[in-house]
């Protein structure tokens, strides 16, 4: 591959990545807006801002897609935009059918872009285009397909450069004028040919910065739907320089200090803008450079309508009173930085390594204590160490917070799915969301999207009854589905609850027995029920049910939750409903752990899972059938020996340490041979199926390159229940 081709590819590749990211944002805004519009159907006035936002979303998508050549997306967006334009101009009123079409179009757009990205065949969209055209056909002039981009020589100052200047920018502009510079509006339109010649927005930027001052730079969507870059540039370079750059995709026009009369001026060619100074009372303010110095600019104001200052630099030295209009009422964008999640991962890794290093430092200090305690600096050393621990914790939390996003984004995506599903299955669903601002790690939310969607689909498809069934059962015809999120200490709790028909434990148990998943006489409690429905291959429906779980779905839900270090719980009652509760740790990566040894191998047990640690003599253990128990706090505590559970050599005779996990009736003591210490560990996932074993939640490295496995308290408790149930030691 030649260097030109690979540079071209690289340019296009990074362009595409940005494209997908931008599409996500625009689609999210469109979805939000459409849902608001839907709820205001038939309730009188539409919120113009919302209509505007949806319109702009489609408009941007159209332009972006056109630029990178994703024609199907461009067309879909274009047609949707046309409808929105009519709506925006109030030439038509919103009706349910039309909204339905736009919503469907949005969904199709998502699918098309996703398929494009994955290199898969695209879903058929011709029908959708026709449907959208129908919406606009009978109304005001149907939107024509976008006109071909104007020839490069034509001049039209970029709309963005006409936009009102921010205060900082106008200050710099004034300063530039005071130094005798001229101001230009530069528009650069990238193209493949230019990129091949090595000319892209960055080279243009550098060029401009070398020869003058770049006051403002912004990407814009041109009226034709393409992407260009608009610069406001102040320079004392000779204007003929600009003419030389015409070959490089650059168009330019003088920037006039008096703001353009109206937004419509954006589409008006330069002559009109140049005519403004003629009417303005203070032509002395205008630093309009000589129009005559712009050869070949067809639309350029060669007419020099009366207010042309003499060619060349230096306007009057007196500071012109520039009027700056404030930005329109549209919300000011918050300053955000888009960061690659991979970079945050790297950052997290670095913090993790810092944590390990500090822990080792602490170990060393502890070992030194006997001899070092007499050294005068000892206390300072210890204090510094403690301070570092505190600061590292803060740093850790700060970095973790960077990765947090509101869970509302995920919930919103489900709203769409619920609508469709409800309609397709003939049910009426009232979806209530709460806790949308609850923040959760971006990686966690990405992984949880599919599982959550699965649970939501289950609720609508299987959980909720049809309106007729509900009425017959004495319930309101509309089913209720609630999605809730809240933080609880170190974790985020997500609930998905429906008030539908609940699960029939008896029927599920029967199926489970028939499938050999549980013993013939076993009763199912909630935990057991959950285990059964999450077992691979289990399903209460025929394979024909495509809308949701086929035995694969729930397994993946639980696996994902566990992989993220969380827990899944079920509550259900026949006739009343079902609730899934998912608890996910906020702090993905670093936990405090007890380092223990059992059967000659070192393990780590996350501290939050341990309620107490007891030292016991083996003689204190009572053996009853195949269990071991110990008297504890007036009751008995079942004991499970880790070494035995893991088929490791036991060390009989030695004292045992019990890590008490679980609570109340579910408490058990995990017996280990030694407690080696306590430290913070960085949790690494163990994902490969070959080494996914029950009782192990992950792995860590204590600083010497050796892997130490992290115990899964919940799984150990469950394993114990199962082995007790089956009568194995």
């Amino acid at each position, binding site marked *: 591959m030649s260097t030109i081709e690979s540079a071209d590819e690289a340019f296009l590749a990074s362009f595409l990545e940005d494209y997908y990211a931008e599409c996500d944002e625009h689609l999210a805004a469109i979805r939000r807006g459409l849902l608001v519009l839907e709820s205001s159907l038939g309730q009188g006035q539409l919120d113009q801002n919302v209509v505007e936002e949806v319109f702009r979303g489609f408009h941007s998508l159209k332009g972006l897609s056109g630029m990178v050549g994703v024609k199907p997306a461009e067309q879909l967006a274009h047609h949707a935009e046309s409808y929105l334009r009519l709506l925006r101009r109030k030439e038509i009123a919103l009706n349910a059918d039309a909204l339905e079409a736009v919503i469907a179009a949005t969904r199709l757009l998502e699918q098309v872009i996703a398929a494009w990205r994955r290199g898969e065949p695209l879903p058929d969209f011709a029908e959708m285009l026709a449907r959208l055209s129908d919406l606009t056909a009978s109304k005001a002039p149907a939107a024509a397909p976008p006109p071909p981009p104007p020839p490069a020589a034509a001049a039209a100052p970029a709309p963005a450069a006409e936009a009102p200047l921010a205060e900082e920018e106008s200050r710099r502009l004034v300063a530039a004028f005071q130094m005798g510079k001229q101001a230009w509006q530069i528009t650069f339109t990238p193209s493949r040919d230019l990129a091949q010649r090595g000319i892209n927005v960055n080279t243009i930027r550098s060029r401009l910065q070398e020869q003058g001052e770049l006051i403002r730079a912004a990407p814009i969507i041109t009226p034709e739907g393409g992407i260009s870059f608009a610069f406001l540039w102040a320079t004392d370079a000779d204007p003929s320089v600009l003419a030389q750059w015409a070959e490089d995709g650059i168009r330019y026009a003088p920037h006039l200090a008096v703001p353009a009369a109206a937004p419509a001026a954006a589409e008006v060619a330069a002559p009109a803008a140049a005519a403004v100074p003629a009417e303005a009372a203070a032509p002395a303010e205008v630093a309009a450079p000589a129009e005559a110095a712009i050869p070949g600019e067809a639309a350029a104001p060669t007419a020099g309508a009366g207010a042309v200052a003499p060619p060349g630099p230096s306007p009057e030295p007196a500071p012109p009173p520039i009027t700056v209009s404030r930005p329109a009422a549209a919300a000011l964008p918050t300053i955000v930085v888009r960061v690659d999640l991979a970079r945050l991962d790297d950052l997290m890794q670095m913090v993790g390594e810092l944590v390990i290093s500090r822990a080792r430092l602490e170990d060393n200090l502890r070992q030194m204590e006997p001899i070092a305690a007499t050294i005068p600096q000892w206390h300072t050393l210890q204090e510094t160490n403690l301070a570092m621990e505190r600061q590292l914790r803060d740093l850790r939390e700060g970095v973790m917070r960077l990765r947090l996003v509101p869970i509302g984004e995920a919930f919103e995506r489900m709203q769409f799915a619920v609508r469709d599903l409800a309609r397709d299955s003939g049910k009426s669903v009232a979806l209530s969301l709460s806790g949308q601002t609850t923040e959760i790690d971006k990686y966690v939310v990405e992984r949880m999207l599919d599982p959550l969607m699965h649970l939501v689909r289950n609720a609508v498809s299987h959980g909720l009854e049809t309106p007729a069934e509900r009425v017959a059962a004495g319930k309101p015809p509309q089913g209720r589905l609630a999605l809730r999120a809240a933080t609880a200490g170190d974790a985020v709790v997500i609930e998905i609850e429906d008030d539908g028909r609940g699960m029939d434990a008896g029927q599920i148990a029967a199926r489970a027995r028939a499938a050999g998943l549980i013993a013939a006489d076993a009763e199912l409690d909630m935990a057991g029920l959950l285990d059964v429905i999450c077992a691979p291959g289990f399903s209460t429906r025929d394979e024909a049910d495509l809308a949701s779980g086929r035995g694969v779905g729930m*397994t993946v839900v639980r*696996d994902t939750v566990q992989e993220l270090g969380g827990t899944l719980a079920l509550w259900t009652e026949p006739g009343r409903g079902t609730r899934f509760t998912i608890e996910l740790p906020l702090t993905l990566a670093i936990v405090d752990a007890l380092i223990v040894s059992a059967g000659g*191998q070192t393990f780590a047990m996350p501290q939050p899972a341990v309620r107490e640690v007891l030292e016991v003599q083996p003689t204190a253990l009572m053996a009853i059938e195949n269990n071991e128990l110990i008297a504890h706090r007036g009751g008995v505590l079942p004991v499970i020996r880790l070494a035995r559970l893991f*088929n490791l050599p036991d060390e009989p005779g030695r004292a045992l340490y019990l890590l008490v996990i679980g609570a109340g009736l579910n408490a058990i003591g995990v017996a280990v041979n030694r407690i080696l210490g306590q430290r913070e560990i960085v949790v*690494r996932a163990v994902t*490969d199926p*070959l080494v996914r*074993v029950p009782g192990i939640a992950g*792995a860590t490295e204590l600083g010497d*390159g050796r892997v130490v496995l992290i115990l899964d308290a919940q799984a150990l408790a469950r394993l114990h229940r199962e082995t007790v149930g089956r009568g194995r030691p």
Partner: protein
Amino acid sequence: MPANGTNSEPYILFELAGTTYGVRSQVVQQMEMIEHITPVPNAPDFVEGVVFLRGQVIPAINLRRRFGFPKIPYDLRTRLIVVRTGGRTVGLIVDSAREFVPLDPATIQPPPEGVAGLSGHYLAGIATLGERLVLILDPDAVIGQEAGLTSPA
């Protein structure tokens, strides 16, 4: 060093129980000497344990056990060949590994039925390199990419 065949693909050759095997170098992420492997309780017999590589915890398969040979103690020549395929990264413990050779896929014969001692299951083919016989490994089969062994990713 490289052959003149335009269709040659580079392969890494390793020794196991006296036989030479080859694996496409494209799937090989790295090769390491054996450092500490942490055993994983109740894992399949041929899984030696896990190691820590490039910030990731990956399983290490003892290829001798996988193929039904007796294990031998590690020595300075033992190598961990880390393969990456089907979205998984797994290490293979072999007796030694040193050579890189280009092989023309056209010279690779399908594994004959009933190759004694080995399920042809783990082989993608047999190649001749001069006078040597090289058994070509199927990394996906070795790490167990068949349905049922892996949960949906």
